């Protein structure tokens, strides 16, 4: 293995300038990736797998308020980082998922929840898809029935619509 690495290193010395430059560039990019401050952030250490799972669930159900189409889990915004820390602290303090969500809703409003609660303001939001489905389905069924009736009247069976 080492011999091979040595051999490829020697090969590289013999390689044309362009290739050397390319390898150097790749090494530089790798180095920069390693020096990225984000990867230097301390990983959260959970007490057990269950707690880690709850953290992942909460962070993926809560919205980052800075970049509003990302979850707290996805976002690199400083506030998202702070809020993840708060969630982590509350988990460690033995708070329930509901208590943690309430903490955030009390401060930032229902907007932080990716699935909003069912209340008067959100009735339309929750039931519009079902209503649209019913309306569309109803329309489709009456259309099909009408067509079938028209075909029956014409005495056709193949029903290719060319009557």
């Amino acid at each position, binding site marked *: 293995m080492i011999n091979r690495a040595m051999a490829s290193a020697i090969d590289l010395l013999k390689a044309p300038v362009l290739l050397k430059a390319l390898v150097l560039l790749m090494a530089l990019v790798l180095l920069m990736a390693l020096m990225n401050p984000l990867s230097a952030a301390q990983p959260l250490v959970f007490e057990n797998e269950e707690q880690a799972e709850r953290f992942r669930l909460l962070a993926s159900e809560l919205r980052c*308020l*800075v970049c*509003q189409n990302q979850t707290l889990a996805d976002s690199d915004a*400083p*506030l998202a980082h*702070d*809020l993840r820390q*708060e969630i982590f602290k509350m988990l460690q303090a033995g708070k329930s998922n509901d208590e943690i969500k309430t903490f955030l*809703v*009390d*401060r*930032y*409003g229902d*907007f932080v929840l990716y699935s909003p609660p069912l209340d008067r303001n959100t009735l339309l939001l929750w039931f519009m898809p079902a209503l649209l489905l019913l309306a569309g389905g109803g329309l489709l069924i009456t259309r099909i029935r009408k067509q079938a009736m028209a075909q029956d009247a014409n005495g056709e069976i193949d029903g290719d619509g060319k009557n």
Partner: protein
Amino acid sequence: MTGRLLPLIAFVLLAILLAVGLTISDHKTDIPSPLIGKQIPEFSLPVLGDPGRVINRDDLLGKFEGRPFVINVWASWCPPCRLEHPLLMELARDGRIPIVGLHYRDQPDAGQTFLTRFGDPAQFHLSDVSGRTSIDFGVYAAPETFLIDGDGKVAFKHIGALTNEVVAEHLLALNREQAPR
């Protein structure tokens, strides 16, 4: 006959929906604060430039003795804070409403440099380096400006740089009600 009109009706409805969406989209990123009408949260923060002095909620409310005041959340790293700064300076000059700064997620040195360079509109600034108190205030993007009424409740919140309209219509609204001149 209705079958022929249906696509047209659907199109008109969709157009109306889009028009409504377009007209409200200017403010769709402004999240209404659940703190409106509620007492400002408890806190305990050092004063910027005087870290030995620590102020909590009761100290803060006591200072204004039932008069409304403004809490302005700002940081030296925030360009819109720089943008709204002249308005705050103007507000401070004519003394219509007292301003308290909430220096948010920023190094004290950087904040003081900012104030030395551009002027200090506030009576004092609370220094929230970690941003923890600002989470309790529901802050998610500096600058944010809160109007606190005489009872210590949040009367109004503005997200983003202040404008002349916001100052006149909202920040000074309580002044007109409570102390007509």
